């Protein structure tokens, strides 16, 4: 008996996963809970665990390929003799050669629809728009020879009917590079946020006390800043709310998302309960998050659901001021530029459906107060 391994749903938003690496090879004994593969989801690389004891068996999907959630990516067989591999194993328990998956180890993809049926289905069921304009995706992958359209339509130029590409076509030659799933996720979030009615209020804050405290206590400046924001939010709880069509979602806990560049793109590890936890606890949390970001092992639960966001470009000496896009689910995001003698320019971008100009001004005043007395932040 072989049990299929399905592409797991590792986050709520995950619809596809890219198989980064098989940790086990066909024929390897696996125990329930063993990590057998790594899968890249929206934002992170996650581990896939064996759900039962047995032997990993092919056909496995190839490393680097993407599969929808639920698709079979491999098998766990209950006997080493039933394991399917690309090349026969010398002995069932012998370690497998490095190139376990060669060309005959085809991805286990459901049998494709026959071309004739696809021709019928495409012509009658495709949404009008797709039939008439972009014949890029499904048409070509499902039925390479079945398109009912004249062949001229299948040329790459068809894709130029998308407005973005039209603009690009007017410029120099280009090649399309697949965006990383992280970039795709950021793009989705940003597009979702574009409809938020936003206003910005900038303040010049003297961050020196906070910088000094960070140095003295060997604490992260960002962490102290997040703490200061969290305390300001406690004083102005509207900043912890989020607008929904059903009403304002007023959250019980202040969770601060901190924008970080992990070398591949933007990610926002979340400091949970940033207002109430002790600084020691928060420092520990932050260290763990930081470590995971560096290893690209941040789980969706660790980078989503913040109630307020913080973005710090202070490391860049030339940035005078900047603002950020308010992510969905938050009321505001604070953008902190380079610290200067005369004060650091901090811009609060707010969702106008939740907070108004005066709220922002008061919030910034409280924040300025918090920053002046870093000793109180630890209490």
């Amino acid at each position: 008996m072989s049990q299929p391994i399905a592409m797991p749903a590792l986050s709520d938003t995950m619809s596809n996963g890219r198989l980064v690496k098989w940790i086990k090879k066909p024929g390897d004994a696996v125990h329930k809970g063993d990590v057998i593969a790594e899968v890249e989801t929206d934002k992170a690389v996650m581990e896939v665990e064996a759900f039962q004891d047995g032997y990993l068996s092919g056909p496995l999907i190839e490393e680097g390929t993407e599969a929808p959630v639920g698709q079979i990516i491999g098998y766990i067989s209950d006997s080493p003799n039933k394991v399917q591999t690309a090349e026969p194993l010398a002995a069932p328990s012998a370690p497998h050669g490095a190139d376990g998956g060669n060309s005959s180890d085809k991805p286990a993809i459901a049998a494709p629809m026959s071309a004739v049926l696809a021709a019928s289905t495409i012509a009658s069921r495709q949404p009008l728009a797709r039939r008439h304009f972009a014949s890029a995706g499904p048409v070509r992958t499902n039925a390479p020879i079945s398109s009912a359209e004249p062949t001229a339509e299948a040329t790459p130029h068809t894709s130029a009917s998308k407005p973005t590409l039209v603009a690009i076509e007017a410029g120099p030659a280009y090649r399309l590079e697949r965006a990383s799933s992280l970039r795709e996720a950021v793009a989705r979030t940003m597009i979702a946020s574009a409809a938020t009615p936003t206003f910005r209020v900038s303040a010049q804050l003297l961050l020196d006390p906070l910088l000094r405290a960070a140095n003295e206590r060997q604490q992260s400046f960002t962490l102290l800043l997040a703490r200061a924001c969290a305390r300001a939010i406690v004083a102005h709880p509207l900043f912890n709310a989020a607008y929904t069509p059903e009403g304002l979602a007023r959250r019980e806990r202040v969770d601060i998302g901190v924008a970080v560049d992990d070398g591949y793109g933007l990610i926002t590890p979340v400091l949970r309960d940033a207002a109430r936890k002790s600084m020691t606890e928060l420092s520990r949390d932050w260290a763990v998050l930081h470590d995971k970001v560096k290893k690209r092992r941040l789980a969706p639960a660790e980078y989503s659901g913040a109630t307020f966001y913080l973005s710090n470009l202070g490391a860049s000496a030339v940035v005078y001021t900047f603002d950020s896009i308010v992510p969905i689910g938050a009321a505001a995001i604070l953008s902190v530029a380079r610290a200067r003698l005369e004060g650091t320019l901090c811009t609060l971008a707010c969702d106008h459906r939740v907070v108004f100009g005066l709220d922002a001004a008061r919030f910034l005043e409280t924040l300025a107060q918090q920053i002046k007395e870093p000793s109180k932040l630890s209490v």
Partner: protein
Amino acid sequence: MSQELLYWQALNRAMDHEMAADDSVFTLGEDVGLYGGSYRVTEGLYAKYGEWRVRDTPISENGFTGLGVGAALVGMRPVVEIMTINFMLLALDSIINGAAKIPLMSGGRLKAPLVVRVPGGIARQLAAQHAQRLEHTLMNVPGLRIAVPSTPQDAYWQLRQAIASDDPIILLEHELLYFTKGPVDFVAEAPPMHRAIVRRQGHDVTVVSYSRHAVVAQDAANELAKDGIDAEVIDLRSLKPIDWDTCAASVEKTHRLLVVEEDCRFAGAGAEISATLTERCFYSLDAPVQRLAGLDIPTPYNGALEAASIPQIADIVAATRQLCQATSESKAA
């Protein structure tokens, strides 16, 4: 009094019976005489009726087809055999500009009782130039009639009716049907040549097809019956004219229509059937008419690709299931 015969034998008997009954009937074409026909349809006729009535011709399709047209105009009843429909392209001038038009252009004073018998369809790995279907081309020639027998009985009846008719008629014979067997009754009265036949009664969905795919559709219907889907299969038997009444009556009963053809989907028989039955039965239909057809590509030589280029039983089963499912869902909603 019926007899089990192969399709080619039924055609052979029809030729024999017509030639015996009427001296003006003769046949001509490549290898019809001494060799007995590529698919044995004229076997034995050369010996029985001699070289004047069973005439071997050079490889000159437009020439000998034109000869047939001329003979028909002056009162003979020629049966021209074109070795495969692929070579018929060369004879289209005689057929389209000659046989199909002269009766009208002569004000009816000249008749063209011509029969052109052509093997066609996709057989087994004969490659693109020998695996064409030209129904769509021929259907668009006013003045021609087209019969597409799928059983030995129809082959017998329709060839005899074609010879007896004063109109120019194309008999499209499918190459994979020549060696199929079935009962042939020489005595029974034949239905009109263009009458469609309900091959299988059903009440869930109407499947309209013709020629070999009418047989394939029946096999698919038997598969579907196992799932409790009761498909009615109509064999058109004639592509010009088409017996709309039989089709419409069935669609009005089942409310769903699937059209299956081996010919290409674009602007072919299926398109015509779908359009006309949609016009006639629009208010009876529970779902849009579905079509399964050959792909719009030259037929591949590779056996697997060849099979993938035309509807198979599994395709018909799947498409019918989808059609029935979609409608029952929309009804539930």
